């Protein structure tokens, strides 16, 4: 029998529930009607997240999981993101574009997630495996391919697996009228179809790759770099 899939959406816009990023992410999640799929959206801007302190740069072995900030600051809420990632089958990073790059909030979360990546690269213990990744990017001007590239770079090192066409993106008219963007997103069914299609793609790919319905076997693969660590 097919295991219940869990899909996680990380909304990385500073504007949280008011953002267009959240609007498209939520809309896409609402299209999932299958009750065997557990859905969770984390709005990172609603969490108290201390910035990464770059202990890695003092000594790579200081960057551990749980992160040293998580261990010493009980008010820090990054644990919610760590746990959600570790317990999900599908992980979507959803970010707006700001000055040609992903949001500063996305960067903060990525830097804090270094502890999960570092577990593999430095301690040779794989924490993130058998997870499917996807990316949602939207902005008012250009730059989405660059942002997707950056996020894919991090996510593949984190350990997620990408299906073909692993992202959905939209950018606006490159003028100063950002206030029209929401109406456009609400009315343009093609834009919604792009983002909904990504979620459908990720779910279908996960069903094919993670669980063999015919043989009943579960996919299990990990890779550890042989790069030496002192």
């Amino acid at each position, binding site marked *: 029998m097919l295991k219940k899939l869990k899909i996680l959406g990380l909304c990385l816009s500073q504007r949280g529930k008011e953002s267009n990023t959240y609007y498209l992410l939520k809309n896409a999640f609402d299209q999932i009607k299958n009750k065997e799929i557990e859905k969770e959206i984390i709005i990172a801007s609603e969490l108290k997240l201390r910035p990464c*302190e770059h*202990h890695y740069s*003092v*000594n790579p*072995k*200081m960057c*551990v999981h749980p992160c*040293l900030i998580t*261990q*010493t*600051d009980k008010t820090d809420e990054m644990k919610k993101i760590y746990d959600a990632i570790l317990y999900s089958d599908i992980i979507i990073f959803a970010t707006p574009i700001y000055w040609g790059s992903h949001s500063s909030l996305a960067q903060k979360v990525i830097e804090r997630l270094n502890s999960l990546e570092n577990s593999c690269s430095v*301690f040779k213990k794989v924490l993130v495996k058998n997870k499917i990744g996807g990316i949602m990017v939207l902005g008012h001007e250009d730059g989405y391919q660059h942002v997707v590239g950056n996020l894919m770079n991090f996510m593949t090192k984190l350990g997620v697996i990408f299906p073909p066409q692993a992202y959905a993106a939209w950018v606006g008219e490159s003028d100063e009228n950002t206030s029209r963007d929401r109406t456009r997103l609400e009315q343009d069914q093609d834009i919604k179809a792009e983002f909904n299609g990504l979620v459908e793609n990720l779910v279908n790919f996960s069903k094919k790759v993670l669980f063999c319905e015919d043989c009943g076997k579960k996919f299990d693969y990990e890779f550890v770099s042989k790069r030496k660590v002192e």
Partner: protein
Amino acid sequence: MKPKDNKENLSECLCPYCSVYTRCAKEKKERLFCGRGKTACAMNTNNMCICGGCLVYRKNKLSGGYFCVNELE
């Protein structure tokens, strides 16, 4: 491996130079937390730990940090 509580390690210990270190710990002459164990004082854990930059840390192949509040396993 837990570092030994000896003169050599004490001379190399960076704990008193760390921004996490507090006056309380100084007054109690606490240091070398990785070898001796946790502090009895409140520490400034919002500040950045420098354990990983210490010779004692590297010689003993430690990982993690904030040994003043986290017991070394």
